[in-house]
């Protein structure tokens, strides 16, 4: 219960943060469309299908097998660590249920980069 509460409060502060930063005038159109691409790849059933297991952003009907992907910058200050988790989660947990997206060729390197950027923005 306490844990849920903590996750919630992280979610709320993350929301508050994006609320502020989201309207920052420095947001470049290019970045935005790259993030959109990453989001599409992450949500797509034939691609990342991350929503099968993770609550993330405004994704519809998420599963709850993995932890919610929120406040990612706080938990993954180093983007390379995040990318490694997506490429092959077995490095961290050999028995993980999360598919090895890079190693098994589910996603290309480029697709993983786009997803990493998107997830990092959550």
């Amino acid at each position, binding site marked *: 219960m306490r844990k849920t509460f903590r996750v919630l409060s992280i979610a709320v502060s993350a929301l508050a943060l994006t609320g502020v930063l989201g309207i920052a005038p420095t947001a470049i159109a290019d970045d935005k469309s790259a993030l959109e691409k990453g989001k599409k790849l992450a949500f797509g059933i034939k691609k990342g299908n991350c*929503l099968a297991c993770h609550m993330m952003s405004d994704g519809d009907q998420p599963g709850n097998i993995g932890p919610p992907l929120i406040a990612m910058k706080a938990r993954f200050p180093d983007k390379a660590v995040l990318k490694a988790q997506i490429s092959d989660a077995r490095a961290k947990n050999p028995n993980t249920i999360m598919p090895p997206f890079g*190693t*098994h060729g589910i996603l290309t390197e480029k697709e993983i980069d786009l997803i990493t950027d998107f997830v990092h923005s959550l």
Partner: protein
Amino acid sequence: MKKLISSVALLIIALPFVTVQASTPAEDTEAFRSYFKKAVPDVKFEDFQNGVYALDADSREQWIEIEEFPPYELAIDKGTELWEKPFKNGKSFASCFGEDISGTRAKYPYHDEAQDTIVTLEGDINKCLTDNGEKPYKWKKGNIAAVSAYIAYEGRGKKVDVHPKTDKAKAWYDKGKKFFYAKRGQLNLACADCHVYNFNRKVRSELLSPALGHPTHFPVFRTKWGEMGTLHRRYGGCNKNIRAKPFKAQSDEYKALEYFQAVMSNGLELNGPGARK
């Protein structure tokens, strides 16, 4: 090549999990049951034969409504018709299974020591046809599911009671067990990943059923199929979902898997045919 190496490496990781513990089927069954009992203490043992409906009150209500006009009823009717229809040689299914089939469903699956194979109900339905000079049915749906549904219906209320006794039978059990716990497919998932370690959680909006009780209610009318299907049809579907090449219905792999799943479900009531989303 890289893919190949990684899947070999992964097998090595996955295997100790299964083979290190030298346990008997009865011990495995006990451990399996207590795992689920501990995970969802409020669910009664007898309720595990009801899949996700043992876990979630809302979908259980919908399901009970569906059961008032069971979608598998037509299949039972069709199965009865096929059961009674004489073959060209004048005999019928009763010549293979006997007149009283109240105990027939509960005999399967079993290990045939002489042939060293697992005999399934569907296997024997088709064997009865070919032994009598008839054409066998297709394996996953249609007539085979209808006859299987009729036999399941007549055999409702008996309990799953499958015990590997000989070394050969035990080898089939072990093969099924290994299959169940091994990661496979592009998504690298084992049956156990979804139906043991993460049962009662959701993949997207779908609640994952406990593997305890999986085989009790087959064949099943699945809303998504809009028709009946056998247990091996469902196995194929779950294998496809993880982007693994499905095995053929009634392949040795799926027969071993059915055998293992039955042993895990010992003591639960046979309540087929069933209805599922």
